[in-house]
């Protein structure tokens, strides 16, 4: 089995045995539940604010899964094994990101539909919301890898990780929420796809550079 596939399966199994997407989805739905409680159940207000708020909740749910991503590998010595392996660390990092997206990003994407319905989003907009979330969570994971790798050796680095990653979330949020709200869909969708591809291509490289320093 190639190093990519091996890392991918190991990560998937670790994430599933750790409860999988259950906690992030619960977090996601809990965060969307707070919105009408704070804003009031006014239908027109929620209809306008719903899709963007689903996006913010998805971004926060991904953020919450990032802190332990590389910390566990650093603590138990897995990172040293990855560095010893003949496969490039960039590829292994990409595999970890891909596993995170499949285990958490995709379930969140699907949970986006009921969350949007609960926030009164029009039903004909649901496909846009789901497609935009699929691309957006990929972009979040890509840049999130960098933040997780940079803060892997920081104890209780959750707040620092969030601070580092939030400015990187700005472009996908802008275009993703635009797609979800149905504004200028084709242009925004192609730029969002560009954000996702760019983050998936560059994120693992920067994360691998940071991880090499962490094990020194």
């Amino acid at each position: 089995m190639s190093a990519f596939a091996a890392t991918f399966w190991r990560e998937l199994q670790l994430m599933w045995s750790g409860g999988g997407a259950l906690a992030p989805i619960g977090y996601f739905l809990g965060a969307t539940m707070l919105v009408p409680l704070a804003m009031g159940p006014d239908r027109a207000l929620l209809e306008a604010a719903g899709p963007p708020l689903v996006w913010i909740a998805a971004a926060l749910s991904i953020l919450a899964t990032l802190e332990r991503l590389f910390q566990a590998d650093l603590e138990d010595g897995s990172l040293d094994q990855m560095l010893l392996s003949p496969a490039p660390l960039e590829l292994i990092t990409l595999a970890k990101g891909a596993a995170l997206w499949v285990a958490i990003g995709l379930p969140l994407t699907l949970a986006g539909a009921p969350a949007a319905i609960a926030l009164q989003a029009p039903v004909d907009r649901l496909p846009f919301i789901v497609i935009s979330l699929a691309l957006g969570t990929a972009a979040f994971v890509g840049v999130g890898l960098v933040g997780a790798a940079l803060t892997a050796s920081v104890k209780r680095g959750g707040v620092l990780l969030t601070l580092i990653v939030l400015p990187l979330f700005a472009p996908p949020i802008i275009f993703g929420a635009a797609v979800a709200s149905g504004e200028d869909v084709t242009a925004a969708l192609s730029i969002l796809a560009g954000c996702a591809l760019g983050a998936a291509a560059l994120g693992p490289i920067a994360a691998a550079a940071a991880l090499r320093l962490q094990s020194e």
Partner: protein
Amino acid sequence: MFAFLANPARFMAFSAWAAPVLFAGALVLFAAGIPWALFYSPADYQMGETVRIMYAHVPAAWWSMGAYAFMTGASFVGLVWRHVLADVAARAAAPVGAVFAAICLITGSLWGAPTWGTLWEWDGRMTSMLVLFITYLGYIALWSAIEDEEKAARLAAILCLVGAVNLPIVKFSVDWWSTLHQPASIMRSGGSAISGEMLGPLLTMGGAYLLLFGALTLMNMRAAIFRRRVEAAELRKAQA
């Protein structure tokens, strides 16, 4: 020039007089620029006297971006050639750039109140400046969270380069986004080309901010190098 200064001993000798000279130059330019901007330049025919906030606001915006560009260059040199002084320079410039960004945001907000009728507008430029400010905070926080100085320097350099890729994308995204959402009521400043009478004090203030940035960065670098020397001396004393 850079090869000459790469030697820390030569750098310390150079900066010992360069920092005070730059600082004095900044004081001279501020002494000329502030009265020029406040009393001897014309008021704007639309914005009136409030246009004078521009002389504090625009140079802060220029050099907060300039400082980030400087940090990006220094981080690149530090990562590729593993040069200690480049790491020190990048770290030293960060708080100055962050404060410039904060000055830009605060004066922009104060300027917006009388001219746009609001303390904060999600205008493209203000939003990207806010993102730049948050990027600065993340960079400074990462430096201080990691104890091992050398590791912190490399990790912060990676973050700085990632931010240098991200900030133009943010700038583009935010411009796209704000044209989509732009409310029609905003009175735009700078629609017409800036007059020569305003350009003089603006460039003087820009020069003053630049010299101040140089002086403060050099002082920060000197302080960091002195701190390292003290730590090394204490270590030697403890071992003896």
